[in-house]
Structure formats: structure tokens, C-alpha cells
């Protein structure tokens, strides 16, 4: 039996879930269909309402 958790999708939601779980000490497998993670958010230049850089 495993305590591991699978996250499907490496956009901002998948990244946040994975980091939270990893920080709690759980082993995470993060699957992304594309060659790199980042998802739609990585395509954004800046984010509202703070105009911070997306990456």
C-alpha cells in the first residue's frame, strides 16, 4: 500500500498542490502532457492585480 499522491496537470493548480503535499512530507508524482510544466500561467506576461511577473 502506498502513501503517494498523483497530480495530473502541471499548471499553477497542479504545481501548488504538488508543492503543498511535498512540504507535508508526501511523495508526489506530477504528470504533465507537455515537455515542461507551467501551463497557461507561464504564457502570461504579468498577473493581476499586482502586475507581478508570472514566472
Amino acid at each position: 500500500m502506498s502513501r503517494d499522491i498523483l497530480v495530473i496537470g502541471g499548471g499553477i493548480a497542479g504545481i501548488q498542490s504538488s508543492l503543498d503535499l511535498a512540504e507535508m512530507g508526501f511523495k508526489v508524482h506530477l504528470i504533465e502532457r507537455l515537455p515542461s510544466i507551467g501551463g497557461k500561467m507561464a504564457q502570461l506576461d504579468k498577473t493581476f492585480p499586482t502586475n507581478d511577473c508570472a514566472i
Partner: protein
Amino acid sequence: MLDVGRHPNIELLAYSEVEKVDGQAGDFRVTVRRKARYVEEDKCTGCGACKEKCPTIVPDAFNEWLGERKAIYSWFAQGIPSTHTIDPAHCRQLNGKKCGVCKKGCKADAINFDQKERIVELNVAAIIVATGYDVFAPSRIPEYQYGKIANVVTAIEFERLLSASGPTGGHLDRPSDRAIEAEIEELEKKANRSQKVIAKFEEQHGEASGEFYARYEKGEYSGDEERGKWAEKYQEHLAIVEPLKALKKKAGGFTAAKRLAFIQCVGSRDFRFYPFCSGYCCMHSIKEAIIAHEHGSETTSAIFGMDIRAVGKGFEEYKVRGGNNSNIRYVRGRVAEITEGPNNNPVVIYEDTRERKVKDEEFDLVILATACAPNSGVKQLADLLDIEIDNFGFYKTSATQPLDTTRPGIFVCGCAHGPMDIPESVAQASSAAARAVQTVTASEQMRKAS
């Protein structure tokens, strides 16, 4: 992103897809297909020497096809993992042609044309689905003429045009102007080649082509086959050079886009497509208008919408600030049609509901705030995971357990759940992580008790 790549508790399986899921909450067995990159992940340092050598140029999906990449590529410059990937649809070597220059250029010896896809089996206690959304295809709305008028773009395309690492280096060059510049470049290459051809004749006869051609036109060399060929080549050269001159003159007047129009609810709040509000697009348009104004202080923006939905912490203030400081005008009215005016300028036809008048206005660039559509792969993944989807194609959840799918142990967050912005996605993601942990601990307690 970087933290994901180096966290010891995260195994990152990029360029992979789920094939099969068996078992139940607390004990899922998942089959994952790791697609062949043709680059060894443990050897590639991400230096990019391979893509500099690669001769094949391909449109770049990360830049919404507005830029170019090579057949060997990294998804984007700061991508994690930085491992490069060979695109099997375009690679010369993988399509049976002689090439392999990337392999020769790779100092890490990471290129492996014989790499095969691999199947990996995982045993997990819980699954979080965070597969995101697709941008609504605005070509489904014929009156907006997306795809027909070059200077009508989507919000995400505009995002790439604004980005310093994007295809224009952050200059707001209009797509129609970029097309003409590409045409000039192409014609210049052709002109150089034809110039070389006529230069040979000029050298041979010790005379400039223009002078020779004037006499030839008068019929001086009738019957001279050699000079006939020269005249023919000179005519061909002129047929390239003259339109090139005209295009260059036109391109001399090109400036960055300064008059912007943002059209809200493209596909959302529209009973033909998605009746729901996509939520983030009002703020997204305001943000893009503010950033565009930061790029050039003379930039003006008009945001056309039924209403501006600035619901969120600090959002209303952001909207007001945009209006006061960034030359943004909010127009209440739904756009009926976009047509093309002089200089490839899109013309927006709309009803100003405050004045009760139908108006038209010319802009440099129109940006469509497209709906948050369900991911195109949603049905396939829902079948694999044996979970249900709702009427629109988002994963089905209930009001009392908003992150639980219809199968215990599988949770959903972000835009796979429904349209939402980044702060909400992040909040949901943390919640989904907590729900997944509950599944793990509950199944452990069950095992201890039995």
C-alpha cells in the same frame, strides 16, 4: 516552478500521459506512458546548442504560433524540466532524411534517436486532477472575423506580444505589419539571388542592366539570343524589386499598436456557446491595457463589455486605477461586428447603451477576451478515471464537497473544476492537497483497524 523541479518529494513526469487507472481510494494503480523525447533526460543540460544547429523551423505553440522554434526545442526558455525535446513530426532524422546535426552539436551526448516510449506503473493513494482549460476558439463567432482580419487577436496571443520573451520582444507590432515585414525579408532574399544573376551579364557585357534594357526595348538587339536572356532575367528582377520598394515604403510608416479595443464575453455569457461568466476575463483585459500603457504612454484602450466584473480583493481599485492612470475607457455595450478598414485597421461596430446609439470606431488592434472553455481532453481523461463531467465539460462536483469528483479518492482543482483566476486556482489547489491527505490518512486508519 523551479521548486517543483528540485523538491526531493516530487517526481516530475513531464511529457507523459495517464493510460489506465485501476483500484480504489487508498490504493490506485496508475499506468503512465512516458513519451519519447529522443533526448536523455538525465544527460541533457538544457544548454540549447542543439536547437541552434537544427535546420528545421516550426511555428511555436507556446507563443500561440506567433513565433518560431526549431524541430528540437524547449517548451519555453525557463521551462522545468529544461530537457529539450525532438518534435517527431518535423525532425528530419526521424522522418528518414539525413541530418543528425543536433547529435553532433550535443556535448552531453544526450540525443538518442532510438529512444522508445516507456510505460511506468505507479501505486498511489489519491489523485488530484488539475488539467486546466482551453481557450475558446473565437473563429466560432463569424461576426468577429478572427482568423480573417489579421489584427484581431485573442487575449493570450496579446499576452505573448506584450511579453519581453515573446516573438516581438515586447513590442506591440501588429500581426498585419509583421506579415508584411516577413514578406519583405522573403523578397529581399529573392532580390539578392536575381541581382547575382544579372550581375554576371553586366560583367560579361561591361554595361549596367538599366541602360542595356532601355536600348533592348527599342529593338536594338532583336535576334540576339544571349541578350534576350539578359533582358528576361532583368524583367524578372524588376518584378521582385518594384513591389519590394513599395512594401518597404509602406513598412516605413509602421508604428506599434496604440489604439486598442478589448471585446469582453467572447464565447462566455453567450447562449450560443457558454452561458456562464468566465470570471477572470474582465480583470485580464484591464491588466493587458495597463501593461500596454506601460509599454507606451500614448496607448489608449477601450474595453467593450456588458459590465465589468471586478469581484476580488483589490480588483475594483485596480479597475478604477486603470481608468484614471492608464488611458482606459470602459464602454457599456456588446460588439455586434468587426470589419476591416484602411491600413488593416479593425473597425468595431457596437451599440453604446449609455447614449442609445449605434457607433463604429477604428482601432489599431482588437483583443478578444475569450471564454474559459473545458479542456479538449476532458472526456478521454474522465473515461480513464471513471469520473463524471457536467453539462459544459468540467469535472462534476457537488456544492457541499466542491473538490470531490464522483469517484472517492479523486479530487479536482483549478480551471478543470470551472473557470477561475490564479489566486482562486492556488487556493483550490491547497484545498485539494488537504483532501488528498485526508484520503491517505483515512485509508491508513481503516487498515490499522482491520
